[in-house]
């Protein structure tokens, strides 16, 4: 058994075993087993990271014949693009498991669903076959739909349905794009590595453009970029805290990862041709996300919009990497490295922010920023954690967001100077809105929303909350101060992707 497949399927095996445990044994059995499985998985990921050889190639590769007659294989492997995302996924799921060590509404199905989601998410980042990738892509949507619909609050059913329909359209368009690639290759195959080598759409401009349109649309909806982002805010607002963490931290990365893993290396020519559109979409997402976030009164909705903004940076960077006429190879590598770092950083910081939003909702059943004030006095640890996450998110040096955004801007400036300059405004707005939010909620005179049934005192972070949020922030600081351990893994693989685009 390949260690990668073990990492992917361990949560699923745990879920299958837990399915036979009767629910009357109590919630603890399930939440603790979940934590144990997530921790074991993280240990395996760390071990894999230590044994990882960063040479730009694929490690831990495994290829089994699955449906050879239709060109579908069980092909998994990991490189410097996938490994950091696999690690973030494992960390975030463990954080969710720790956060959920409490009374849950129907714990058993919740735990089973999250374990399945973990397999699906890890599987997606390790898949090297388009259909395998698609299977995970689609199942992540189904899983998240049930998380939001069953454990969400407010208008959860409606938001979940919107999320499902919207991203399902994206996934099916994506499938059409994959079919286009499959049919173009001779012999027909869905294998990502073989397709990258064969470059079947070289010299077929219209065909390539249509396939890129389909694949780009699919990933743009998942990422999401403006104008396909409208499903995101309601889904986040009504999802449970852990659901939001996985949605923002892992599921959104599936879109941006798809650009780097599939769209760029498999359609290099079309990518170069239409990179300017990607850049524009990225910049619009950056600015629009930031401006709309500025107008929000709902804390969770605001974070959701900053996600649109942050994913915009990633899209800008991958677009700039395709503008081959201007800018040297090194700058373009830097941009894509920054994009991958941003995916990691956003996963950690936004994960922490959504957990904090969950803490607020647990205490007072409200996300309304106007009704909270002066929380710092009552809950200094919560205030500190929020400040750290917010500073990281706005790109303060010393935290992971800075490393990511600095590389993105430096790398993109040469090839797309005007868009990059415009995107810099996004940083300013985000900084302003995050500071304003922190200022309103945590400083000043104490004021709490009147929620019937809540205690008078506002409790600081409990241990399970602290132990779920803190590791994410520690990792963000470590990446901010000592980024080399991450960049050394990412850079070689980025260089090979950039090499493929230049072909």
């Amino acid at each position, binding site marked *: 058994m390949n260690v990668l497949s073990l990492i992917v399927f361990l949560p699923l095996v745990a879920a299958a075993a837990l399915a036979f445990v009767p629910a009357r044994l109590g919630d603890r059995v399930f939440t603790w087993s979940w934590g144990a499985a997530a921790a074991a998985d993280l240990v395996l990921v760390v071990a894999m990271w230590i044994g990882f050889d960063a040479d730009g190639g694929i490690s831990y590769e495994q290829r089994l014949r699955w*449906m050879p*007659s*239709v060109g*579908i294989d069980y092909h998994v492997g990991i490189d410097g693009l996938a490994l950091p995302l696999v690690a973030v996924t494992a960390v975030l799921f463990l954080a969710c498991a720790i956060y959920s060590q409490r009374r849950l509404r129907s714990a058993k199905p919740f735990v089973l669903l999250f374990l399945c989601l973990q397999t699906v998410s890890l599987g997606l980042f390790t898949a090297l076959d388009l259909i395998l990738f*698609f299977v995970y892509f689609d*199942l992540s949507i189904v899983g998240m739909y049930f998380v939001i619909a069953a454990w969400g609050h407010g208008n959860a*059913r409606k938001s979940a349905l919107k999320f*499902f329909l919207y991203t399902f359209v994206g996934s099916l368009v994506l499938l*059409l794009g994959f079919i286009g690639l499959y*049919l173009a290759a001779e012999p027909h195959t869905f294998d990502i590595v073989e397709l990258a080598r064969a470059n079947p759409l070289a010299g077929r401009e219209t065909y390539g453009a249509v396939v890129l349109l389909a694949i780009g649309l699919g990933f743009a909806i998942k990422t999401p970029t403006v104008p396909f982002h409208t499903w995101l805010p309601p889904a986040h607002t009504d999802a449970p805290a852990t659901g939001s963490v996985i949605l923002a931290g892992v599921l959104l990365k599936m879109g941006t990862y798809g650009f780097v893993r599939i769209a760029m290396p498999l359609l290099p020519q079309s990518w170069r041709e239409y990179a300017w559109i990607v850049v524009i979409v990225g910049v619009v997402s950056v600015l629009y996300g930031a401006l709309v976030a500025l107008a929000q009164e709902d804390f969770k909705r605001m974070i959701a919009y900053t996600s649109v903004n942050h994913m915009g940076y990633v899209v800008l960077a991958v677009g700039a990497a395709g503008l081959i006429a201007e800018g040297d190879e090194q700058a373009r590598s830097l941009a894509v490295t920054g994009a991958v770092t941003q995916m990691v950083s956003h996963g950690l910081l936004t994960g922490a922010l959504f957990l904090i939003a969950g803490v607020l909702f647990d205490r007072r059943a409200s996300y309304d920023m106007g009704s909270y004030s002066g929380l710092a006095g009552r809950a200094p640890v919560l205030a500190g954690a929020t400040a750290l996450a917010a500073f990281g998110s706005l790109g303060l040096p010393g935290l992971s967001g800075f490393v990511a955004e600095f590389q993105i801007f430096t790398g993109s400036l040469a090839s797309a100077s005007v868009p990059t300059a415009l995107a810099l405004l996004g940083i300013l707005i985000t900084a302003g809105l995050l500071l304003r939010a922190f200022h309103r909620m945590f400083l000043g005179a104490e004021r709490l929303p009147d929620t019937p049934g809540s205690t008078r005192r506002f409790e600081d972070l409990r241990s399970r909350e602290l132990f779920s949020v803190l590791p994410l922030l520690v990792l963000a600081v470590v990446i901010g101060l000592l980024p080399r351990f991450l960049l050394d893994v990412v850079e070689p693989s980025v260089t090979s992707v950039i090499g493929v685009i230049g072909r």
Partner: protein
Amino acid sequence: MNAKLTALVPELALAAGAVLGLLAGSWLPRAKQWSVGVLTALACVVGLVATASSWGGVPETVFGGSYALDVTTHTSRLLVLSGTVLVIWLAGESLGNHPRKAEFYVLSLLAALGTIVLAGATDLLLLAAGYLLASIPLYALAGFSKDAPGTEASLKYYLLGALLGVTMLTGVTLLYGVGRTTRYVVLVRTLSEAPHSIVAAGTVLLLAGLLFKIGAVPTHFWVPDVTEGAAAPVAAFVTTVPKVGGLVAVYRLVSEVVPPTVNWPSLIAVLASASMTLGNLAAFFQESVRRLLAYSTISQVGYIMLAVTVATRSELALPALLFYTGGYVVTNIAAFAVISEFPGATRIADYRGMARSHPALAGVLVLSLLGLVGTPPTAVFLGKLEVFSAAVDGGYTWLAVLAVVNTVISLFYYLRWMVPALLAVPGGEHVPLVRAGRWTAACAYTAACGSLGLGLGGGLVLPGLTGTVLP
């Protein structure tokens, strides 16, 4: 003549099983009628074994070129017989101690036989005979419970079937008139020299009957009434098994016999679009679960017809057609098994809170409904992948895009059933869910596993679905 009786063991087993079952059923006391069920299931199993042992042989036609033994016939036998076994299994408990239980089994067996003949026929007269044999037992089955909805369903089914049967015979007559033969092998040659307009008219009239069998637009009017009015096992049968024969017959006819001068791909493409779109739109706000599934089958047939559209343009069309049909049959039977397990629950609201009281069966329901949407890793997903690939490969990208749009639309109404079943709290004004029994549940689990297994293990099956289709 090439009268090779050994090649027809599955068909003979079904005929013998039907005759023996009818005789035994006339004499057996009511409490022992179940043994006829065992007998008919046994006949199907004999047929399955014979099919499996003859798989992969050299394709040939027997009985003077009137019956083809090729990959399509073999697969149709496999699907029809497996589907029939599942339905017989389902019926065991749903029909209880029905006084005419033996008749149900015998009629199902005869309809299955007719469906296989429809699939294998390479002669217009045999095709017409297959049509009648596949239809008449089903008219009787639709009204099996002798209640008002069943009678209405039966009458509607019969009248439409009789009308389109006559239409089909007119088509046969026209093609015979200009082609001077009813044998496909000869028709291939003679029809291309015959007057173009008469060939086109004959083809359209002939197709009308086959479209009726598969329940595609515009001959779909019977589907909702029969699915809702007939007994649940009958509905499970009617919405799955006859489609196999009808689809294969259409495929064989258009890909091998109809000359290219007739623009049949456009006709089938239009019918496919209409089927999937109208079926989906009609399913939208159905409150009755059976009507919902009825309209869903109309749209599913539309997707499968994508493969027929590109029959001569893509090598992927044949495996796509056969695999999708197989995946659809087993997935749809799983959904109907859940319906049969709860005979009292007829409306979506009756399934509220099912996950709490019956978690495993709720799992089957979700698996089959998500399966019908085409969620991986179920069989219909792989079928859709194949069908879409075939359509794009054959130059019908617009049809694939339309199918994608329809798939998204279909998600909505499947969720309308799934979500209350999974998430709602039981209570309110609805009938409590009463189970029919363990056998029906076991059938539901088997069919669901089949759908999942076929999706995951499609790699083992797909290579066996390619081969020559004989005219």
